[in-house]
């Protein structure tokens, strides 16, 4: 029996899946983070840009689809978070706007700003996008200051439903260490994935050895942050919601969630194991280049588990610290049953889309990019 509640849970699952795929695909950002760090000469930087440059649109599209799917399934989040944490989202968008033109423009004659500037834009996006998105997701656990009052629509002079309770409009998230840890963790994860992806995608010994160096550094930073985040997450208070929709604080809420939902524990552990295996195999075995295909799926699993911990098992996934009862839950922020059902039918096409992307990905990447190839084909 397909109930409204089931559809809401299903759509939270889809959102979690898209989030997982998005973080995996942020290897593009991670790669760009390394343009100037790992790319020691023009040719190496060119290889990096051309490697991530053939995939960046997928990441970008996943972000846009993530936004669209969130809008369609949980519109109250779209309206409350985007309209409220205004500056965070605007900053994220601006970095992506710069990214969108930078590949195409960077090496074209007449580009006014010069190659280095456009690559700097790519690096800024590589750094800020995962950092800010991660910080914003951190607030899924720590909360934000907003109120939601649907009755406001009846007030002709001031009909706005969602209001942010401070003038920082989202920037205040960096005042909470957990959010920053979370953001940095995602940033270093992107860097790890970027290094792994390029080791697989580019055939160049010199570049590979410096990528391995950055992989090790990035992974160490990631590991420390990951352990910190997990420690804080499992010991922090969380935002519980009861069957009447009443939100209250609960000690060790996320620890309880993980114990109540062993599947999330399994996903999280499997994700971590795959990630560590992918990284370790790449670092310790110089001939091993397929680390991204272990770490990538591992990332998807781990991110999904975190989203499920944030939203399932009676938890408010976008909690309000200004007014607990304004917190957003899967139940109170979702679309209507009809819309969720319609969109569920639409979602059946996702495996097909993933399928053709994977097929063409394989077709295009049968052979890794080489320095020689850049001299003989179209390139950025």
């Amino acid at each position, binding site marked *: 029996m397909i109930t409204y509640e089931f559809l809401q849970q299903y759509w939270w699952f889809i959102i979690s899946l898209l989030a997982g795929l998005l973080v995996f695909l942020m290897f593009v950002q991670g790669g760009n983070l390394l343009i100037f760090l790992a790319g020691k000469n023009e040719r190496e930087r060119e290889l990096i840009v051309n490697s991530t440059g053939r995939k960046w649109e997928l990441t970008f599209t996943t972000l846009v689809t993530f*936004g669209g799917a969130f809008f369609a399934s949980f519109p109250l989040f779209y309206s*409350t978070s*985007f309209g409220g944490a205004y500056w965070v989202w605007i900053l994220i*968008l601006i970095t992506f706007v710069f990214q969108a033109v930078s590949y195409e423009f960077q090496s074209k*004659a007449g580009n006014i700003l010069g190659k280095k500037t456009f690559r700097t834009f790519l690096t800024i996006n590589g750094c800020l996008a995962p950092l800010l998105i991660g910080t914003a997701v951190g607030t899924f656990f720590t909360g934000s200051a907003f109120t939601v009052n649907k009755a406001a629509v009846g007030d002709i002079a001031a009909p706005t439903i*969602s209001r942010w309770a401070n003038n920082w409009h989202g920037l205040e998230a960096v005042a909470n260490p957990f959010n920053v840890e979370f953001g940095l963790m995602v940033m270093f994860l992107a860097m790890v994935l970027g290094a792994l992806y390029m080791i697989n995608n580019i055939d160049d010994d010199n570049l590979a050895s410096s990528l391995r160096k950055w992989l090790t550094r990035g992974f160490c930073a990631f590991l420390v942050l990951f352990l910190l985040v997990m420690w804080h997450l499992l010991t922090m208070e969380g935002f519980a919601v009861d069957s009447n929709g009443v939100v209250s604080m609960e000690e060790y809420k996320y620890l309880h969630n993980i114990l109540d939902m062993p599947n999330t524990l399994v996903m999280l552990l499997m994700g971590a194991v795959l990630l560590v295996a992918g990284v370790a195999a790449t670092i310790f075995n110089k001939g091993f280049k397929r680390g991204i295909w272990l770490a990538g799926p591992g990332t998807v699993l781990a991110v999904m588990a975190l989203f499920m911990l944030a939203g399932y098992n009676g938890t408010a996934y976008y909690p309000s610290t200004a007014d607990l009862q304004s917190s957003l839950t899967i139940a109170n922020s979702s679309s209507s049953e009809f819309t969720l059902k319609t969109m569920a039918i639409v979602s059946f096409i996702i495996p097909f889309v993933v399928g053709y992307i994977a097929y*063409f990905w394989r077709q295009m990447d049968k052979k890794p990019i080489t320095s020689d190839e850049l001299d003989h084909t179209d*390139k950025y």
Partner: protein
Amino acid sequence: MVETALVDWSRLQFALTAGYHWIFVPLTLGLAVIMAVMETIYVVKGDEFWKRAAKFWMKLFAINFAVGIATGIILEFQFGTNFSNYSWFVGDIFGAPLAIEGIFAFFMEATFFAVMFFGWQKVGKRFHLASTWFVALGAAISAVWILVANSWMQHPVGMEFNPDTVRHEMVDFSALVLNPVAISKFFHSWFSGWMTGAIFVIGVSCWYLLKKREQKFALSSIRIAAIVGIIGTLGVMFTGDSSAVHVSKYQPMKLAAAEGLENGGERAPFSIVPGIEIPGMLSVLATHDIDGYVPGINNILDGYTTPDGQTHLSAEQKMERGKIAIEAFSNYRELKDSNPEEAAIARKTLEENIEYFGYGYINSRNELVPPVPLVYWAFRVMVGLGSALLLLMFIVLWAERKKRLESMTWLQKAAILAIPMVYLAGQAGWIVAEVGRQPWVIEGLLPVKSAVSSVSVGAVQTTFFIFVAIFTLFLAIELRILFKAIKEGPKTEVE
């Protein structure tokens, strides 16, 4: 109190983003078709000439495509950042087409764009050709869904208001997709993209003719582009005609504003420019009947009765009923737990007046009239330039067929000048559609002023100027890169 300045700046920021986005999108829509046709000829005939021709236009396509993506992402997220109330109030319906656009169209474009550019040596000839067509198809599908969303704002269908959740909820998905306004609007916009792509290719090619360069390439490109452009422009005119009928039916104020028609009636005249009119022509365009009744601005504000006996309320009556609806909504919410019987009565009152809900937020009848001179002139610019460009394309095609184009420098110059004109026509079209529907973000249900987010005016001003700076910079860079690439021309082998 929602500040007027906040509403204006939010609106301006949206208009800026949409306007810039619409500089880049039509070329994407049209050029994609033209280069796909060229590559098809290459695959069918096996003539390398067409491959190189297609590749040259693809290069220009890519430069333009990037900026389209950059402006597009802001557009999508802006519904949330600047129109948060809108996002909740109708997100149940409006979010769906945006999500579908991402899943169906953007992934298709992203995947096949990469194959189209980097796959020449990695996939087979036919495979590559299919990829190019998929890029064109992806762009068109994207236009379908965003225009389904836009059309729903112009003519909301397939939903019911739910006072418990305080939003309009979708009850009929097919009504949303098959909205007649959406069908006209999609084809109108898509074909206008063909027109833009065609004029762009013709103009650039004529520049080569003028410079006596790449003549074979230029003439061959002109032939394809002129045919695509003529088909596109005829499509634009045909769908423009059905759009006019829809507007007269669902958004009579927009039509009255576009015509500057203060007092309408039967056999309403069409104004070519102020002072020159064709009697009865507006009735023909709007109702397909020379005796058809077309209300003017004053008629709509004062209320009117059409010859078939249908009465339309005056502005004050609608505002009154809107206020009744909003009050009933509040009463329902207050009473639903304590007094179910009274609540049921309030709900019934709400349902009876829901059609006018948005009018409840309107303070004076003047708010209901969009800026008439802007819409009036934008309409004339759109139609006038569109017709002139069609004529130009016929002449160019004729001259090319008669092998006279190379010597007709005046025509070459006119074709180059046509490039900015086609953009002007496209922008004017959006002004008619979007300024003409003010003050409504959703026709009759929600005015813009009740849709905006609660952020400070200063914040919106800041982001507005940031976007102005970024988009203008990108436009300047794009133009400079395009000029350089055009100057460099297709690879010499094409000659």
